[in-house]
């Protein structure tokens, strides 16, 4: 069923990279590496955790040091392509305002005089030249300026959109976790070399937990238009799909998990699903 949905030519992924990723999931049981200290992630009764390598941006060559546990409800949830689609469509449409405008009969710039007398002419009877029947007259049911297309996607669709996209990114090997965003120089060439050597996609989205980013990476990425920095609160489905690779810092991963798990396990779900009101967002 899913194959039918995304039936396109299979594109071969770089074999060394995929091999490395697959090995990582198997080697976990015998890992000698120390895992990052975190509270046990059996929240919701899920014991089969997803995992990812934590590497660094300090050197061009990847140095995966530790393994981070990822909660399956956030990073291993069912990849609902239909929900992802609805989120993308929503993100595009809710901001859109259509400024197209057509004139209604009263607005057409013409005289409202009766064109010719009612009877005697042998012509059809008309009251105004502005009518939609006439060339140059008004438009029936045409667009009227400032048509907003605002709507709110149901709350849990937005939550599942985020979890589905994160899961898809992880399973398609487009999600990488780094310990922090510190790089040695502010030269954009460094980042370009790093991304090329690690076979990360042409466009990369770096996500940190706060909006103040380290100096070097900010200066470097300022000059590269297809690689961007984003705080956790800016995480959205459209951006995650637009950029080929997603790079999260460990702090960002923890924050995303904490926020999404809170929404998935809150007891007052009826508060979240109330009608959206702009002045009552909490």
């Amino acid at each position, binding site marked *: 069923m899913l194959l039918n949905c995304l039936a396109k030519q299979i594109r071969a992924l770089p074999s060394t990279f995929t091999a490395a990723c697959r090995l990582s999931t198997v080697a976990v049981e015998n890992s000698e590496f120390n895992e990052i200290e975190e509270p046990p992630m059996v929240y919701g009764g899920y014991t089969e955790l997803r995992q990812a390598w934590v590497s660094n941006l300090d050197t061009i060559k990847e140095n995966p040091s530790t393994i981070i546990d990822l909660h399956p409800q956030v990073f291993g949830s069912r990849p609902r392509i239909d929900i992802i689609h609805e989120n993308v469509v929503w993100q595009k449409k809710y901001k859109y305002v259509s400024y197209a405008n057509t004139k209604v009969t009263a607005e057409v710039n013409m005289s409202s005089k009766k064109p010719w007398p009612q009877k005697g002419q042998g012509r059809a009877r008309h009251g105004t030249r502005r009518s939609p029947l006439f060339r140059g007259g008004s438009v029936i049911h045409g667009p009227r300026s400032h048509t907003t297309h605002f709507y709110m996607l149901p709350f849990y669709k937005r939550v599942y959109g985020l979890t589905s996209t994160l899961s898809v990114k992880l399973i398609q090997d487009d999600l990488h976790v780094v310990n922090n965003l510190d790089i040695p120089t502010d030269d954009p060439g460094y980042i370009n070399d790093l991304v090329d050597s690690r076979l990360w996609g042409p466009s990369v989205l770096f996500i940190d937990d706060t909006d103040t980013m380290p100096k070097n990476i900010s200066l470097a990425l300022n000059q590269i238009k297809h690689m961007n920095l984003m705080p956790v609160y800016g995480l959205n489905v459209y951006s995650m799909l637009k950029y080929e690779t997603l790079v999260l810092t460990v702090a960002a991963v923890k924050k995303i998990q904490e926020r999404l798990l809170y929404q998935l*396990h*809150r*007891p007052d779900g009826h508060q979240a699903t109330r009608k959206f009101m702009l002045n009552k967002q909490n």
Partner: protein
Amino acid sequence: MAVRILFKNAMLRSGISLRLNSLIYKRDSSYRSSPIAQDSSCYAKYEVSSSPEEWKFVERLLPLTTIPTPSDRKDLPSGWQPQTATFGKYPYFVHRTRNHMLPVYLKVSMRGTRRITQINNVDGNIWMLEEAIKKYLMRVYGDKKIIATKVHEVCGHLCIHGDHVSRVKEWLLKKGL
């Protein structure tokens, strides 16, 4: 929700006038329409108390942010049982809902004539779960009922025609799911 408090008793036992009552309970409808705060001597004097015993009463009133984890007991009076099956025990797995309940629902439509039992949150090989449930229900009903099922692999739910909610729940609990 701004509700005006109506004072029916105009005079109190000690004889405080009505004006004081209305002053105590004056509540402005919005921040913008309310007057700017004046010197604190114009308002009632208060004492600040940070006693932990009293604060315990306040904390009791605040809601929890997460759903608490349930106990491991199997003999609870309500008949609820925890999930004991581990992921990987069966080729399929039925996750519990966020409130730790079984995700089996009865969908009634067509003015009550159509009853469908729906099992959500199915993970793994949903086709094997369908086979297993169908086999069980056929054994229970013999030839008396046709067990028609619908598998929705993308969404992870399984629908069975008819009202079999209690039997499906029994079966799932027997398996430990």
